[in-house]
């Protein structure tokens, strides 16, 4: 008998429709895996009853011969950054502990309306700020992967969507939502040997997603295959009048148009992404990726993105600046925690509440943001960063005059040991060096697994596309997926 939790989203969808198994059987199988994986700490809240409820609705609809939603019978994980009506939404912070939204985010609503069921709310870095899932108030998420040779050190699942990546790699859910501000879908996908796509900025509504940096935040899917990402992205995307930056464009049929034939496509290899001292195994994987794309019919040329080295410092001005503004809403008045010391006035209550509710990394970023926006420093830091951001974006525009896609590594290293980079915020920030530039330019970008390193840990490749051209990104991802033949999975220890 098929192990239902080994199936992809497409296989579950199609098998359910064909009558090979019921939606309830699928939901029960994933619920059992979730319940048995506490050691990974991937979920903040488990909602087995929600998964069963959606499954039963799908089974009833099928029995009655009704039209089935695109995701009928498919249970998924929901990053705990999406507001879910009646289910606690924390952004992995103490600040929002106990917050139970009275509304549903647009993206999660679209998924439920399509028939998907919720297995639970997935852990993440606090307010999505982090690259290793070590800043969650609810504890670290552990990657299901371990280094070979009996090394049992707990490894980072990446961040901020670390609950999503860990849960998918461990077969606790076939797919999950993620959000990506500077690499939070792509880097965790790379660390855990799965795929994930950040679409063009504006494709997915931000309404109901706990805000971090509004000009960068984008939702996207994470799953084990490129096809599954295409399926989920189609459901998650679409115009939403409640988000002023939502793109008013029809949603393409990405799944139906998947093709790994890249004849006529030109792929650029940005030379600035190959700095001195680039990890040799990552460089070698990148070279294999180039060969795979050539094999798929693409022409590969070198391109230059001259302002690449400034992307990370630009990001660490703009993202904290926007965060300091967005997170001003946590004041202990309208929702979340309140700390009211004896005799405290309103201002003292704000300061005490925020000291209590935010973790160290969140405080650090709010303070950096406050500083770079403060009188006297605004132009030197923030305006300068917005100008450099324009130059970074222009680099991409000029490259895309010559090529259709870019191929780069996803992260500068494989997953690392929990605690290894925590002491030095800057070392942690450098994890996002390859993912941040596309975020600053709002471009669609995808991570796909390419192979394992010598320690047996997954490494990923990143494909960056032109605005609105998710199709080419997915197609190149598919071409890599077919050639990489990545079937490795973590051995169960949890």
């Amino acid at each position, binding site marked *: 008998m098929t192990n239902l939790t080994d199936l992809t989203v497409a296989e579950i969808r199609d098998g359910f429709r064909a009558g090979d198994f019921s939606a309830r059987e699928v939901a029960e199988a994933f619920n059992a895996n979730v319940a048995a994986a506490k050691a990974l700490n991937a979920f903040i809240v488990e909602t087995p009853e929600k998964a069963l409820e959606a499954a039963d609705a799908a089974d009833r609809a099928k029995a009655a011969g009704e039209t089935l939603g695109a995701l009928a019978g498919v249970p998924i994980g929901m990053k705990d950054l999406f507001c879910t009506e009646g289910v606690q939404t924390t952004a992995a912070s103490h600040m929002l502990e106990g917050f139970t939204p009275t509304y549903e985010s647009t993206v999660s609503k679209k998924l439920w309306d399509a028939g998907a069921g919720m297995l639970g709310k997935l852990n993440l870095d606090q307010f999505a700020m982090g690259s290793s899932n070590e800043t969650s108030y609810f504890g670290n998420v552990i990657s299901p992967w371990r280094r070979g040779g009996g090394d049992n050190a707990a490894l980072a699942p990446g961040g901020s969507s670390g609950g999503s990546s860990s849960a998918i790699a461990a077969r606790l859910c076939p797919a999950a939502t993620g959000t990506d501000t500077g690499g939070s879908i792509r880097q965790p996908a790379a660390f855990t040997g799965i795929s994930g796509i950040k679409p063009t900025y504006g494709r997915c509504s931000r309404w109901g997603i706990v805000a971090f940096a509004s000009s960068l935040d984008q939702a996207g899917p994470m799953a084990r295959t490129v096809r599954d990402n295409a399926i989920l992205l189609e459901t998650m995307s679409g115009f939403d009048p409640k988000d002023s930056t939502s793109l008013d464009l029809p949603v393409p049929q990405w799944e139906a148009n998947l093709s790994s034939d890249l004849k006529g496509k030109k792929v650029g290899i940005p030379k600035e992404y190959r700095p001195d001292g680039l990890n040799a195994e990552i460089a070698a994987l990148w070279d294999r990726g180039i060969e795979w794309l050539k094999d798929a019919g693409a022409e590969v040329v070198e391109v230059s993105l001259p302002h690449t080295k400034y992307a990370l410092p630009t990001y660490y001005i703009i993202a904290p600046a926007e965060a300091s503004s967005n997170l001003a809403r946590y004041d202990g008045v309208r929702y979340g925690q309140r700390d009211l010391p004896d005799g405290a006035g309103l201002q003292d209550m704000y*300061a005490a509440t925020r000291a209590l509710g935010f973790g160290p990394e969140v405080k650090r970023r709010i303070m950096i943001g406050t500083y770079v926006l403060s009188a006297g420093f605004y132009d030197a830091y923030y305006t300068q960063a917005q100008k450099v951001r324009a130059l970074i974006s222009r680099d991409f525009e000029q490259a895309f005059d010559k090529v259709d896609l870019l191929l780069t590594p996803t992260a500068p290293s494989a997953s690392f040991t929990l605690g290894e980079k925590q002491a030095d915020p800057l070392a942690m920030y450098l994890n996002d060096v390859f993912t941040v530039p596309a975020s600053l330019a709002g471009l669609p970008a995808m991570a796909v697994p390419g192979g394992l390193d010598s320690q047996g840990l997954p490494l990923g490749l990143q494909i960056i596309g032109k605005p609105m051209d998710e199709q080419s990104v997915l197609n190149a991802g598919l071409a890599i997926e077919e050639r990489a033949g990545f079937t490795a999975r973590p051995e169960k220890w949890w």
Partner: protein
Amino acid sequence: MSIDLQTVKKIASLSRISVTDAEAEAMVPELNNILGWVEQLGEVDVSGVEPMTAVIPNKLRLREDAVTDGDVRDKVLANAPQAEHGFFAVPKVIE
């Protein structure tokens, strides 16, 4: 530019985050490291470059000036740490 303890305390105050002296002292080198690193942006020639305001050219829409939601007072107040008589309650602000 490097920041000192007084500046850190001022930023904390502007951020409405209360910090102890020890916390503020620990933040001085941390914030200086980060600020020192982002200062490399100063070397980029940005003459004639407009600051970026939108990543994807997208006209801000206008909609009809009409009420589209409302009548959800209890929902709005549902998560308030303290709500009384249909209002958010806060410590006394005016003596």
